[in-house]
């Protein structure tokens, strides 16, 4: 059978999360802090619009790049949020989640052997997508002492004459790190100097808890070399609707649209109608959800301080990334024992890259009551481990 398969695909490592998922799923009464999606239901007015579109019989393909009305709303939204202008007719592409945009964005720009810079810890898809596009992933290991931000020095050191594109995954899953304007200015200089492209995955843009999110496309000379990726999953609690988008220079979006057209045809029509409603009238929902996440984030940071567990303060997404190096275990061992002994699931940092070793991803896409219960168990577990060490 082996010889019938694609060597390239067969050689891809399965996602580190998958393995853990199987263990957790066998345990019936486990509490999970391992989820990478909002706990909120999609706001009712958005769901209602999806239902209405079905009732009206809008069940056909849309044009390949997406509904005109949606592309216009996306363009308007980005103008309002980041102050940048994208032509809805040629610079916006509606995709099946941010994930599809990552895949086809890389496929549209990579030639065999091109190097793709991937800061880690980060989302699990960039590396395999780069490989399947024929590129060579080059990992940049982000450091806790920089709050897992990407620095100009780290970027400069990773660039070679084969470098084609930098993936910029902020606000970050799994660390919760953000890049502020000054951080972006510093790396933008290096990017312009070496004339490389950027894929900025800003799916968590609405979920920041310090200043408002800054996109790299706001900086001088960056919009023309950036594929901006965003979507509805995280901001509007719409993960299951599978809807995202990519914006960028016409030349790149044109090529991406070709791949999208042949592989996907168009993003789900019902979701697109719902998304129009989300952009038109969903601002209040986003604000409410953001405030709720922020309260949980503060709760967790305080709980870690109280149990003296080292953790930098993350200002984005809905994850915290505490350090467990003091216990002399690998992330996987820690997560495995925590699950076995306290029945709480957290994701080992190594699921997001080797440099996640020594860390855990804890999601706060859970109600405060739920978090309290799980964090109580964590405090208990940490106490016991410390007692063992003495």
């Amino acid at each position, binding site marked *: 059978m082996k010889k019938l398969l694609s060597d390239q695909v067969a050689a891809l490592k399965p*996602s580190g*999360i998958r393995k*853990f*998922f199987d263990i*957790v*799923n066998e345990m019936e009464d*486990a509490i*999970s802090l*391992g*989820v*990478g*999606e909002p*706990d909120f239901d999609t706001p009712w007015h958005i769901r209602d619009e999806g239902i209405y579109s079905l009732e009206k019989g809008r069940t056909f393909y849309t044009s390949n790049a997406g509904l005109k009305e949606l592309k216009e709303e996306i363009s308007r939204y980005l103008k309002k949020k980041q102050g940048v202008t994208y032509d809805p007719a040629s610079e916006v592409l509606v995709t099946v989640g941010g994930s599809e945009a990552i895949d086809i964005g890389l496929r549209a720009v990579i030639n065999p052997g091109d190097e793709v810079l991937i800061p880690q810890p980060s*989302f*699990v*898809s960039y590396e395999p997508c780069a490989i399947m596009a024929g590129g060579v992933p080059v990992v940049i290991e982000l450091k806790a002492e920089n709050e897992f931000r990407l620095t100009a020095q780290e970027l400069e050191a990773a660039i070679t004459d084969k470098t084609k594109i930098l993936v910029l995954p902020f606000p970050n*899953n799994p660390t919760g790190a953000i890049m502020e304007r000054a951080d972006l200015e510093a790396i933008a200089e290096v990017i312009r100097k070496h004339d490389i492209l950027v894929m900025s995955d800003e799916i968590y843009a609405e979920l920041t808890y310090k200043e408002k999110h800054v996109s790299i496309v706001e900086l001088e000379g960056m919009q023309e070399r950036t594929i901006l990726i965003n979507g509805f999953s995280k901001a509007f609690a719409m993960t299951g609707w599978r809807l995202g988008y990519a914006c960028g220079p016409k030349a790149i979006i044109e090529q991406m649209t070709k791949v999208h057209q042949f592989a996907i045809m168009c993003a789900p029509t019902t979701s697109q109608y719902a998304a129009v409603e989300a952009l038109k009238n969903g601002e209040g929902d986003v604000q409410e959800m953001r*405030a709720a996440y*922020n*309260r*949980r984030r*503060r*709760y967790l940071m*305080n709980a870690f301080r109280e149990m003296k567990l080292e953790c930098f303060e993350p200002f984005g997404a809905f994850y915290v990334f505490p350090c467990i190096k003091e216990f002399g275990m690998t992330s996987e061992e820690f997560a495995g024992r925590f699950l076995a002994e306290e029945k709480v*699931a957290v*994701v080992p940092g190594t*699921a997001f890259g080797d440099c996640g070793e020594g860390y855990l991803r804890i999601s706060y896409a859970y109600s*405060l009551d739920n978090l309290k219960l799980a964090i109580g168990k964590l405090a208990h577990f940490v106490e016991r481990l410390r007692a063992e060490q003495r």
Partner: protein
Amino acid sequence: MREELLAVIERNSRIDLKELAVILGVEEIDVVNELAALESEGIICGYHTMIDWEKTSIEKVSALIEVRVTPQRGQGFDTIAERIYKYPEVTSVYLISGGYDLLVTLEGKSLKEISGFVSDKLSTLDSVLSTATHFILKKYKDHGTILARKYEDTREKVTP
């Protein structure tokens, strides 16, 4: 802080002060002072408990009553509203725009008790022109809380 504080305690008035300070990112003393201010300004009017009486063995019946009244010169609806809300079995009284004037909600032990109240006390008031009583059969959602079903987390347990 005020707006968010109110939003949080409107949903959970039993939340511990220390925890309230943590999740709002302020000092505990500030929370205490703000709550005191909100109480004295009459913005916080009480800390009640939401009970689904249906699930108890205690019999309770509630009703909404539409009341049409003649407003009184110089006092409008206030005097008649006061006469009505003073009855302890009346749980709320609202002045309403539209086809009738006052919306009165009532709680009693039985249908008989409520209809007795309406016919003996409410409709006999001088300025009451007419009433229409609607008994509540089932509460699906009350105070923003869905009573009809329990929240269930249907997400996959671990996702990237």
